[in-house]
C-alpha cells in the first residue's frame, strides 16, 4: 500500500516539477544539473529547540545558494533538503531515514539536541552518510562512528573548563550555577567543582525545570548562598525568565551565560537594558574580524548570530570543500577529505566558494570558519578553539576578549 502511494506521489511530484517550476527546467537546461548533489539539514523546527533550528537551516541554505551561484561543486548543482527533527529522537530517526534512503543525501548537518544526534548517528555511519553536529554532550564523539561524524561545538568539558577559568578571572569567591536537566548538566557540575576550588572559589548549583513560568523560589535558593557570580546555563526561553527574576530580586553580582542562550533575541525580548546590563556571554569563536562571521551576519540578518548558526554555516562550507577535494560527493568521500578543508599552511579562505575555487585550481586551503578554525581530531572533536567573551552594555554586545 505504501508503495503505491509513493509511486503516485513521485509521478505527481515529477509532473509538478516539469510543469510548474521553471527554475528547475531552466537549471536543467544549463547543463550539469541533471544529477544534483544532495545535502540535508536536520534541525529542530518545532519542539523545545524551535527557537534555534530555523535560522540554522537558513545559514546552511545561504552557503548552498552561494556555491550554486558560482557554478556548484564538481560541475553539479547542490540541492539542500531541510527536515524537522521536532527536537525528538523518534521523529528525527524517521526524518533521517527518509533523508538517507529516499533523498540519498551525502551529509546531514546541524543536529542540535544531543539525544537527536545520538539517535541519528548510527543510521549515518551504517549508511556511510556524513554527520555534522552542534551537540555538546561529551558522549557523542565517543560513539563508534568510524569517522562519519564531526562536531563543531567544543565538548562540554572543554567549554565549562573555560567558563570556570573565566569565572575565576572575574575574581569570584562564590559561584552558583542554575541549569535545567540536559546532557551537560552533570559534566558542568563535575567540571566546575574541579576548576573553581583551585582558584579559591566555592561552587553550588541548582537544577530547575525549564518549563516553569517563574523562577522566584529558585532565585531565592541561589541568593541564599550569597553568590558573587551566577552561571545561567539554560536555553533562551527559560533564561529570559531567569534573568528577569534575578533582576527583580536585586541580584548585584555578575551573571554569565552561553551566547546560544543569551543572544540578541533575548535582549530584544527582555526589552529593558538594565535587566541584562553587564551580563557576560561566552561562545566558541573565530578570530576577531572573521570574514565568515560577517557572512553569517549578512545571511541571517542578525547582528549577533548565535554559535549554532555559525557552526551550521561551517558544516555546509566544510562539506562542500571536502567534496571538491575528493572529486566525489559521497559520504565516504566527505569523511576522507573533511580535514583537507583546513590544512595549515593552505590558503586562508572564509567561504566555500573561494575554497572550492582554490581546491579545483590544485591549491590547498585553510578554512577559517564562522565558529572557529574547524580543525578536528580523529574522534571528530574540535581541536583548538578560541572563546569569545562579550558583555552586554546598554543593550549591545561588546567584545571583552577572544582567547
Amino acid at each position, binding site marked *: *500500500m505504501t508503495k503505491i502511494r509513493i509511486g503516485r506521489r513521485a509521478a505527481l511530484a515529477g509532473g509538478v516539477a516539469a510543469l510548474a517550476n521553471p527554475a528547475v527546467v531552466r537549471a536543467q537546461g544549463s547543463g550539469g544539473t541533471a544529477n544534483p548533489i544532495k545535502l540535508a539539514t536536520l534541525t529542530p523546527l518545532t519542539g523545545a529547540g524551535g527557537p534555534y533550528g*530555523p535560522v540554522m537551516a537558513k545559514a546552511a541554505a545561504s552557503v548552498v545558494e552561494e556555491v550554486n551561484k558560482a557554478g556548484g561543486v564538481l560541475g553539479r548543482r547542490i540541492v539542500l533538503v531541510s527536515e524537522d527533527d521536532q527536537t525528538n*529522537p523518534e*521523529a528525527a530517526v524517521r526524518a533521517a531515514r527518509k533523508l538517507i534512503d529516499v533523498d540519498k543525501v551525502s551529509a546531514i548537518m546541524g543536529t542540535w539536541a544531543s*539525544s537527536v544526534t*545520538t*539517535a541519528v548517528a*548510527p543510521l549515518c555511519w551504517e549508511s556511510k552518510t556524513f554527520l555534522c553536529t552542534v551537540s555538546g*554532550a561529551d558522549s557523542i564523539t565517543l560513539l563508534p562512528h568510524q569517522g562519519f561524524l564531526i562536531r563543531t561545538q567544543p565538548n562540554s568539558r572543554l567549554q565549562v573548563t573555560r567558563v570556570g577559568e573565566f569565572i575565576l578571572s572575574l575574581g569570584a569567591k562564590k559561584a552558583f550555577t542554575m541549569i535545567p536537566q540536559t546532557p551537560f548538566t552533570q559534566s558542568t557540575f563535575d567540571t566546575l567543582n574541579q576548576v573553581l576550588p583551585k582558584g579559591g572559589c566555592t561552587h553550588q548549583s541548582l537544577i530547575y525545570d525549564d518549563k516553569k513560568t517563574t523562577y522566584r523560589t529558585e532565585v531565592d535558593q541561589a541568593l541564599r548562598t550569597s553568590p558573587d557570580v551566577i552561571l545561567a546555563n539554560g536555553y533562551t526561553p527559560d533564561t529570559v525568565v531567569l534573568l528577569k527574576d534575578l533582576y527583580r530580586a536585586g541580584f548585584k553580582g555578575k551573571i554569565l551565560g552561553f551566547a546560544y542562550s543569551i543572544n540578541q533575541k533575548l535582549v530584544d525580548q527582555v526589552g529593558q537594558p538594565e535587566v541584562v546590563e553587564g551580563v557576560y556571554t561566552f561562545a566558541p569563536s573565530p578570530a576577531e574580524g572573521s570574514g565568515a562571521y560577517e557572512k553569517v551576519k549578512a545571511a541571517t540578518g542578525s547582528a549577533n548570530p548565535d554559535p549554532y548558526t555559525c557552526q551550521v554555516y561551517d558544516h555546509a562550507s566544510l562539506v562542500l570543500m571536502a567534496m571538491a577535494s575528493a572529486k566525489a560527493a559521497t559520504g565516504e568521500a566527505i569523511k576522507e577529505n573533511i580535514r583537507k578543508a583546513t590544512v595549515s599552511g593552505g590558503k586562508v579562505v572564509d567561504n566555500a566558494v573561494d575554497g572550492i575555487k582554490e581546491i579545483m585550481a590544485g591549491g590547498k586551503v585553510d578554512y577559517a570558519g564562522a565558529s572557529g578554525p574547524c580543525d578536528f581530531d580523529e574522534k571528530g572533536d574540535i581541536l583548538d578553539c578560541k572563546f569569545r567573551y562579550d558583555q552586554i552594555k546598554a543593550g549591545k554586545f561588546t567584545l571583552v576578549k577572544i582567547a
Partner: protein
Amino acid sequence: MLSYLLFIATIGGIYGLLALSLNLIWGGVGMVNLGLAGFFAVGAYASALLTTVGHGPIAAGWLMALVAGGVAGLVVTLSTTRLRADYLAIVTLGFAEAVRLVAANEIWLTRGTDGISGIPGPWKRALGPDFNAVYFLIVLVALLVVFFLMRRIDRSPYGRALRAIREDAQVAQVAGKPVLRFKTEAFVLSAAIAGLAGALYGHFTSYIAPDMFLPLITIYIFLAVASGGTGRPAGALVGAYVVMTLLESSRFFVEWIPGVTAVQRAALKELLIAVALILVLRLKPSGVLPERIPRARVPPAPRPS
C-alpha cells in the same frame, strides 16, 4: 527507497502494537490512556537496561518489558480504575510526564538526558545490512501474535463482558460482572503490550532517550485507533499504518508548498496531522473498519400455531 519503506514498515508495526494496546482499553472497555508514551518508555527502559547494564539476553529484555509495562499499568490502575474516564485521561497524561521526568533526572539508573545508546539488536553484527529486514519480520511476528490474541479476546465472552462495561459499567456490575477486576486486567494487559512495543523500538534503533517519549506519539496512536476504527483490532492495525503513511507522506507533500519557510512547513505538517484527526472523528467516527459486534444468537421465536 526499499530500506526506507522497510524502516517505516517496522516503525509502523511498533505503532501498530501501541494501537492494539490502546484499542484494548479504549475500544474494549472505554477507558482512556493518555499516558501511552509513558508505558512505551517504561518498556523501552526496562529492556534497554537489562540488556546493556545487565548484559542479559535480548529475549529476556523483551519479557522484562512486558512485565515492567504491566506492573506500571497495575500501579496506575490501582488508584485510578475507580475514576471516571475524564479523570483517568488527566491522570494518565500526568503519569507519562512523571515517567519522562524520572528518565531524565535519575541519572544513576537511566543515564538521564544522555539516553542509553548501544542497545543490542538481535544478531545485528551477523546480519549486517539485512538486519532491518529481519527485524521487520520480528516486529511483524510480535504484531501478529498480539493481534490474534486481541481478536481472540474480542470475540470471547471475556471481550463481550469488557464491551458491556464500556457501554454501561453499572449495568455490567448489576449483571454480576466484576467490573473493577476486568478493568484492571485490561489496563494491565494493555500497558504490558505498550511496554513490549517500547522494547522493540529500543532494540531496533539502538538508542532511547527521555525526549522520545513526548505526548505527541500518544496523539499519533489515538489518531491511528480513531481512524482505523475503535473496538476492532484489525482497525487499530490498519490505522497505525494509515497514520505512519500520513506522517511520512506529509514530508513530501509540504515540500511542494511554495513560499513558506522551513518552520512554517514544519507547522503545516503538524497542522495536517491534527486536522486529519478531527476530520476522521467528525466524518467517519467508526473508522475505516467499523466495530462488528457479534450478535448473541436469539432463539427463533415460536411460530404461532
